[in-house]
C-alpha cells in the first residue's frame, strides 16, 4: 500500500504542477489578448497535432490511417469537398389525387372517397412510399467529375396523414433511386468505367436485358415527366413521334455493378453486369440474403465501312438462383444471344438470335429459341418510311429482364413459386401493343407513317400466333383509365369483382378464361393502331390534337384482325387529346377516351345471364398546365371515368379523379 500511496502523492504533485502551469498560461494568454503580443519567454504553446482541416480523429480519418503496410489504395487523407464541389439537383413533386367513386369494385383498397399524396394509395409498404415518387428528391453528386463520382439521392415523402405524434407513416425518408458510385480508369487505348450501387438502368439487348416499352397515355401525368415547358411535351408528341416512355425506357433496373470496357483499337466494348434486378426476388427475400443474382456480359463490336455501319453484339445473361437458401434446388434462366444492327445505305437492318435455358423444379434444362428481325426503309426509298419486324420466340425462351412478355408459368417475377396473383410479369396469351413481343409466339409488326400537310399519320399493324396452345386464358390491356384503374388494387393480379384484373405499374390488364373444350388450334393475335396528329392555330395560339385508335382481337388459327364474334376477344380503344396553348406559360388539355371489349361464347360466361364479357368504358377529362417559372409548373387534371359490363354486372365502376401536381426542378 505504501507504494500506492507514494504513487498517489507523486500523481497529486504532478497534477498540481500541471494545474499551476495551466493557470499561468491561461493568465498569460488572456493578458496577451488585452495588451497585445506577449514577450513571455517562459511559456510557449507547442503545436503538436497536424490534422487535415475539418477532420479530427474522425472515423474516416481513422479508416485512412489504419491500412496495412501493403495497402496503397486510398492511402491519402481525404481533403474534403467544398460546397462548390458538390452539385445539388433535384425535383420537388407535390402530388395530390382525390378520387370520388360513385360505384367501385368491392376489393378496392380505399374507400370510395380517397385522398392520396402518392402515385399509389398504399402508404408505408416497405419504407419507400409504395414505389411512388417522393415529394422531394434531393440529389448530391461531386462536380466536376473526376476519376470517381458519387451520386446519392435523398427521397422525402410527405403523406399528410395528420398524425403528428407518429410520423413513421406520415413522413418517409428513403433513397428511391440514387445510391450509386462510379469510377473511371484508362490505360492506353483501354478505357474502363464502373458503376456500382443502384439503381443502375441497364440494357444489353432486347432479348436479354431491357424491359418492355409501353405507349404513353397522353393525358395523365407520368411521375418522371421531365418537361419544364408543359406544352413542349405535346409539341414533341406531334413532331417527334416519340414516347416519353416508361421510367426504364427499355432498360432494366439493377442493383450491383456494371463494368464497361472500351478497347479502342478493336472498336469493341465489353459490358459486364452483376447484381440483382427488381425481378430477382421479393423484397422480403432480398434483405435476407436470398440466393438470387443476375449476371450478364455483352461484347459489342462496331463496324464502320464505306457502305455498312453498325454493330454486332454477343450477349450472355444468367439469372442464377435457388428456390430457397437450403436445399440447393435451382431456379435458373440462361440466355445466349447474338444481335446485329446494320445500316446499309438506306436500309436499316437489325436482328437478334437467342437461345435460352430454364432450370427449375418444373423444367429441367428446358431450352427455347428466339429470333427477332427488323428491316426499316427510310422515306427516300419508299414514299413513306416502313418498319417491318418478324419474331419467333419459343415458350421456354423466358427473359423477364428482357423485352419478351412472358407466358411461361414456371418463370416468375420474384423467383420460382411466387404466386401468380403477385406475379406482375406473367402475361399469358397477351394481346400486346404493336412492337411488343412475347414468347410462345411468332408474328410480325408493321409500322409506317406519313404526313398530309400538317396531319401526321402513324399506323401500326401486328399479327402473331401462339406456337403451342398451352393455356386456356387470354390477357388484354385496358387502355382507357389504365392508370386510374391500376390504383384500385395495385400490384394484385386477381383483382376486381371476378378476380380478372391485373393492376401493375401505371397499367391495367384483364385475363379471361377460354372455355372451348377443343384445343387443337392456335390462338392468333391481331392489333391495329392508328395515330393521327394535327397541329394548327386557333386565335393565334397552337392547338395540338392527338388521336389514337387501336383494335385488338384474339381468335383461332389466324392473325388477321377479326371484327365479328369469331374472336375470343375484341377490344377497340379510341382516345383523343387536345392541348391548347393559352399563353407562354399556360396550356389547357382535354381528353376523351372510349373502350369496348367483347368476348365470344367460348370465353367465360356470366353466371347472371350466360353471356360473355361486353364492356364499355369511358374517360373524359380536362386539365391545365401553368409553368410559373422556367423550372416549375402546376398541373391540374380532372377526369370522369366509367366502366360497365353488360353481362358481368358486378364489373362496373364510375367516378371522378382530380390530380394536382406541383413540380419544381432544381
Amino acid at each position, binding site marked *: 500500500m505504501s507504494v500506492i500511496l507514494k504513487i498517489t502523492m507523486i500523481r497529486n504533485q504532478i497534477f498540481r504542477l500541471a494545474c499551476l502551469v495551466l493557470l499561468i498560461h*491561461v493568465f498569460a494568454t488572456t493578458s496577451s489578448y488585452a495588451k497585445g503580443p506577449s514577450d513571455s519567454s517562459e511559456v510557449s*504553446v507547442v503545436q503538436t*497535432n497536424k490534422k487535415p*482541416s475539418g477532420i*479530427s480523429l474522425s472515423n474516416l480519418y481513422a479508416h485512412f490511417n489504419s491500412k496495412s503496410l501493403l495497402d496503397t489504395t486510398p492511402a491519402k487523407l481525404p481533403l474534403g469537398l467544398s460546397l462548390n464541389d458538390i452539385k445539388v439537383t433535384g425535383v420537388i413533386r407535390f402530388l395530390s389525387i382525390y378520387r370520388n367513386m360513385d360505384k367501385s369494385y368491392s376489393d378496392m383498397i380505399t374507400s370510395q372517397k380517397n385522398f392520396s399524396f402518392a402515385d399509389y394509395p398504399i402508404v408505408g409498404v416497405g419504407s419507400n412510399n409504395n414505389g411512388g415518387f417522393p415529394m422531394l428528391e434531393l440529389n448530391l453528386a461531386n462536380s466536376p467529375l473526376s476519376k470517381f463520382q458519387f451520386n446519392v439521392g435523398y427521397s422525402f415523402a410527405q403523406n399528410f396523414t395528420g398524425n403528428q405524434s407518429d410520423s413513421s407513416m406520415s413522413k418517409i425518408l428513403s433513397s428511391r433511386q440514387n445510391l450509386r458510385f462510379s*469510377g473511371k480508369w484508362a490505360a492506353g487505348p483501354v478505357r474502363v468505367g464502373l458503376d456500382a450501387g443502384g439503381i443502375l438502368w441497364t440494357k444489353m439487348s432486347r432479348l436479354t436485358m431491357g424491359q418492355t416499352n409501353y405507349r404513353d397515355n397522353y393525358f395523365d401525368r407520368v411521375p418522371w415527366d421531365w418537361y419544364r415547358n408543359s406544352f413542349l411535351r405535346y409539341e414533341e408528341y406531334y413532331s417527334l413521334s416519340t414516347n416519353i416512355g416508361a421510367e426504364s425506357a427499355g432498360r432494366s433496373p439493377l442493383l450491383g455493378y456494371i463494368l464497361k470496357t472500351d478497347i479502342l483499337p478493336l472498336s469493341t466494348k465489353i459490358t459486364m453486369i452483376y*447484381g*440483382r434486378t427488381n425481378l430477382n426476388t421479393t423484397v422480403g427475400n432480398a434483405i435476407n*440474403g436470398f440466393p438470387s443474382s443476375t449476371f450478364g456480359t455483352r461484347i459489342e463490336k462496331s463496324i464502320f465501312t464505306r457502305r455498312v455501319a453498325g454493330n454486332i453484339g454477343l450477349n450472355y445473361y444468367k439469372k442464377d438462383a435457388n428456390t430457397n437458401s437450403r436445399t440447393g434446388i435451382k431456379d435458373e434462366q440462361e440466355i445466349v444471344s447474338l444481335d446485329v444492327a446494320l445500316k446499309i445505305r438506306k436500309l436499316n437492318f437489325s436482328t437478334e438470335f437467342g437461345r435460352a435455358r430454364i432450370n427449375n423444379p418444373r423444367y429441367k434444362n428446358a431450352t427455347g429459341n428466339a429470333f427477332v428481325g427488323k428491316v426499316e426503309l427510310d422515306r427516300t426509298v419508299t414514299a413513306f418510311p416502313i418498319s417491318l419486324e418478324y419474331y419467333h420466340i419459343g415458350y421456354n425462351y423466358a427473359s423477364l429482364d428482357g423485352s419478351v412478355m412472358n407466358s411461361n408459368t414456371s418463370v416468375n417475377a420474384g423467383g420460382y413459386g411466387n404466386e401468380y396473383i403477385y406475379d406482375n410479369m406473367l402475361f399469358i396469351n397477351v394481346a400486346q401493343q404493336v412492337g411488343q413481343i412475347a414468347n410462345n409466339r411468332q408474328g410480325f409488326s408493321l409500322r409506317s407513317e406519313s404526313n398530309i400537310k400538317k396531319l401526321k399519320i402513324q399506323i401500326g399493324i401486328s399479327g402473331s400466333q401462339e406456337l403451342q396452345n398451352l393455356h386456356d386464358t387470354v390477357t388484354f390491356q385496358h387502355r382507357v383509365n389504365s392508370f386510374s384503374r391500376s390504383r384500385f388494387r395495385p400490384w394484385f393480379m386477381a383483382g376486381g369483382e371476378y378476380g380478372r384484373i391485373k393492376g401493375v405499374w401505371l397499367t391495367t390488364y384483364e385475363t379471361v378464361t377460354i372455355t372451348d373444350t377443343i384445343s387443337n388450334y392456335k390462338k392468333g393475335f391481331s392489333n391495329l393502331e392508328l395515330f393521327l396528329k394535327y397541329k394548327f392555330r386557333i386565335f393565334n395560339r397552337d392547338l395540338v390534337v392527338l388521336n389514337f385508335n387501336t383494335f385488338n382481337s384474339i381468335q383461332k388459327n389466324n392473325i388477321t384482325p377479326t371484327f365479328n364474334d369469331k374472336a375470343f376477344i375484341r377490344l377497340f380503344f379510341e382516345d383523343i387529346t387536345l392541348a391548347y396553348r393559352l399563353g407562354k406559360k399556360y396550356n389547357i388539355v382535354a381528353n376523351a377516351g372510349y373502350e369496348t371489349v367483347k368476348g365470344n361464347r367460348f370465353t367465360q360466361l356470366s353466371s347472371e345471364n350466360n353471356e360473355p364479357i361486353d364492356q364499355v368504358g369511358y374517360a373524359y377529362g380536362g386539365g391545365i398546365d401553368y409553368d410559373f417559372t422556367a423550372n416549375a409548373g402546376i398541373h391540374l387534371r380532372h377526369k370522369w371515368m366509367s366502366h360497365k359490363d353488360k353481362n358481368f354486372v358486378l364489373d362496373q365502376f364510375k367516378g371522378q379523379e382530380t390530380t394536382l401536381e406541383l413540380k419544381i426542378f432544381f
Partner: protein
Amino acid sequence: MKYKVGYIVFVFLLSVCSTSYAQVKFNFNGLGRAIVTSNKIGGETLKGDTLSPSKGLSGYTVFDLQPNLIINNNIKANVILRMRNPFGSFYGANTLFSFRQFQIMGKIGKVVEYEIGDIYLGGGMTSYTMYKPFEMNHEFESDIHSQRRSVAEYENFVSGNLWRLQGVQGRSNFGFNKGIKNLGINIFAVRTNASNEKSIPDRIMAGGRIGIVQSEYLAVGLNYVNLLDVTVNQDEVEYSNSVLTGDVKLTLNRDKFLVQLNGELGSSNFKNVQVYNDSTVQYTDYVTEAGIKGVYKPAKVKLFATYRSVGAQFSSPSAQTTRMNVDQPNSLFTRISGNAVFRNQNIYDRLTDEQSYNRSISAVLYNFLPQYGNITPYGDATPNRVGISVGLGSDTSAKIIKVEARADMFNEIIGEGVADKRKYAAYRGGLVFNFGDLLKINRKMSVNTGFRQETTTRGGNAPIDFKSTLIDLGATVEVFKQFDVLVGTKLLAASGNEYLSVRDQFNLLSDFTAYNLDLKEQIISLGLRLRFSERSYLTGTYNTSTYKEIQSNNYNYNINQWFFNYTLAF
C-alpha cells in the same frame, strides 16, 4: 425518425452557417461503398442438411456523408450521416438512415485542444492502461486480407489500438526553456454505459496521461484510468476499477545507432460493492515492464528485449477488452446442424464479420478461443503472465523489406485451478518484400509471409498441451497500371487440450471448461483490384475457407465466397 429530423436540421444549420458567415468554412468528406457477397457453405457437416441455409447472396450500398463545420480554430464540428441500402432492396425499401458520428473539437485559449462526442482514446497511453489489443498476428497478412479486414474495421470504428468511445477529451502541450523540454497533458472522461435511473448506474471512465520530455535522453509519463459507477439510489452494484502506471524512457540517439531503455510500473485496484447484500470484493495487483531496444541505423536493424510481469488480478478493462467477441453469433451462416446450432467463429469470420467486434469496454474479461491466441489474448495486459520477449527486425525506415522475428516466453504467475502453472512459448515473425521498389519499376509488387506458433504446456494433475500455428502467405502484383492481382492464404493448425476460464461478475476465475481441439483451418483468396484513383477502388475476390476438426469431426465445413467491393472516399 429522430435521426432523419436531426439530419435535416443539421444540414440546414450548416447551410445557414456557411452562407451567413463568410469566415465559416464548411466542407464535406464521405465514403461510398457497394458490397456484394455470394456465399456458399458445404462439407461433411452440411451433408443431408436441408434445414440450415447453405447459400446466400447479400451485401449493401452505403454512403457516409461527413459535413465539417469549421467556425474557427476554437470550434469545429462534424457529423457522419449514413444512408444504407441492403443489396437487392429496390426503390428505397429498407433504406436505413443513421447518425453515425458526432464530434465537436477545437481549442480553448490556444492551449487546450478539446474533443467532445465520439472520440478516440489511447493515443500516447500505454498498453496497460488504454489500448485496444490486436487480435492475431496479422501485421504480415496479405494485401487481399488486410483490405478485406479494413471494411470490417471501418464499420467498427477501428483505428489501430485506439478505443472509440463517447465523451470528452482534452490535450495540451507546453514547451519549456528550462528544466524540462515539454509537458503534455491528456485527460478524458467518457460514459461506457448509461443509467436506467433505477438500478443500473452510469458507468464512467475517466483518466489521462501526463508526459514529460525532460530532454532527448529522458521522458517520463504517468497514466491513469478509472472506470467507475456513479451511484444511483437503488443501484445493486457499485463498481470501480482504477489503473495507475508510470513509465520512463531513456534514449541515446546517435548517428549510427539508437539505444532505448524503457520501463513501466503500475497497479490496478478493483472494487465491486454488492449493495443488496452489503458485501464488497476488492483486490489490487501490479504490472511491471522493462525493456531495451537498439537500432543500428546503417543496417536498418533493430533489436529489442522486454521483461513483463502482469499480476493475476491485474484488471485494466480499457487495455484488456478484446477486439473480437467470440460469443457473438456469426453473420454468415449463423446456424448449422439442422439450423439448430450456432456455428462457431472461425478464422474467416474473424477476418470478415462486421458484427464480431467489441465496441465497448467490458469490466469482465471476455471469452477467447485459444487457437487464435492463447499467450496474450488480452494483449500486453493479459493477466497472470511473467516472462520475456526478444526480437529483431528491420527499422521502420526500411522501404524495400520489412522483417521481424520475435519470441515470447511466459509463465503464469499463479496456477489456475491447480498449483501447476502454464508455460507459454510463442514464435512469430514475418516478411514483406517490395520487389517493385527494389527493381524501381514503379509498380506495386510485393510478397509477404507471416508466421506465429504458440505452445502452452502444464504438468501435474491437470496437464495441458496445446499448440497452434498460423501462417500467412500472399502477394500483390500490379500487372497493369493500377490494376493488381492479389493472392493470399491463411493456414491455421491447432491441436491439444486446454481449459477455458469462466469468470464471474468480479472478473475472478470461477470455473474451467475442458477444451480439446484438433483443428485445421485454411483461407485461400484470389482477387483482382482496380484502383481508379488513390481514393477509389474495385476489388473482386474469391475466397475459400475450410474448417476441419480432425479427430472429433464435429464440424467440418467449408465456406466459399465471392466478394465484390467498390469503395470511394473523398
